[in-house]
């Protein structure tokens, strides 16, 4: 059984805590947690490249993904970030990442107050069952994060 490791913020303290959790998981369920760690580490690195060392908060983001994706070639994804979308208070960008794809970046979406709503929808490829992460950058510098797992029956990387 794949052991799920809950990651909220990806700051240094949390990375160290994760290493500890990984050690405990290894004792109880052998190989799989190491693979999960490798995937989430690659996504964490890609996230850090975009938002730097900023702490991330939970909330505000609704991430819409199917629980099970029949076809990994095209998985519908939508997200919305709660925001008045005014000049003074709006969502600047939302970045989407995948933990289990060859490349962790999926898309970066930049909004403006003229967007009216910080909502977008697209379709993405998923190589295998994995977590999809949305990171929202607000105009006041705060950063929010949300994560959802999608089970994939047929992988979509053109194998």
């Amino acid at each position, binding site marked *: 059984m794949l052991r799920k490791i809950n990651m909220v913020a990806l700051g240094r303290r949390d990375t160290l805590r994760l290493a500890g959790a990984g050690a405990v998981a290894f004792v109880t369920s052998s190989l799989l947690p190491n693979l999960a760690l490798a995937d989430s580490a690659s996504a964490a690195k890609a996230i850090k490249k975009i938002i730097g060392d900023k702490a991330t908060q939970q909330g505000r983001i609704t991430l819409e993904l199917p629980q099970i994706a029949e076809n990994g*070639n*095209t*998985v519908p994804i*939508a997200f919305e970030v709660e925001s008045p*979308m005014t000049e003074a208070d709006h969502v600047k960008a939302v970045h989407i990442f*995948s933990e289990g*794809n*060859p*490349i962790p*970046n*999926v*898309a*970066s*979406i*930049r*909004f*403006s*107050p*003229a*967007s*009216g*709503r910080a*909502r*977008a*929808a*697209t*379709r*993405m*490829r*998923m190589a295998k069952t994995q977590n999809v992460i949305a990171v929202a950058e607000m105009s006041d510098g705060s950063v929010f994060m949300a994560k959802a797992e999608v089970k994939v029956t047929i992988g*979509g*990387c*053109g194998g």
Partner: protein
Amino acid sequence: MAKSKPRVKVPKSVKKGEVFQVKTLISHKMESGQRKNKKGKKIPRMIINKFICTYNGTVVFESDWHPAISANPYMAFYIRAEKSGTLVFKWTDDRGQTYEKMASITVN
């Protein structure tokens, strides 16, 4: 190269201040760079990597795409109606080739 046809769906008329949805679709293989040909050689990446929407000349929505965006990329988003005018949609691929589509919007 197959021609990439962009399609957009915007309401014909909206009330001032109304937030309306825009749907866009463009036919494109979005070759990820992960697939292999019959000889086992990797097919090089060739994707649309940028999408921009302007409303009367101002950028209202912009997106960077990576190989994980599915073939025939679909993107839906929202715009707050201000003045009547033109929406211009532009897609750019890895070679710098661009595809454009325009739509008029009437704001009451």
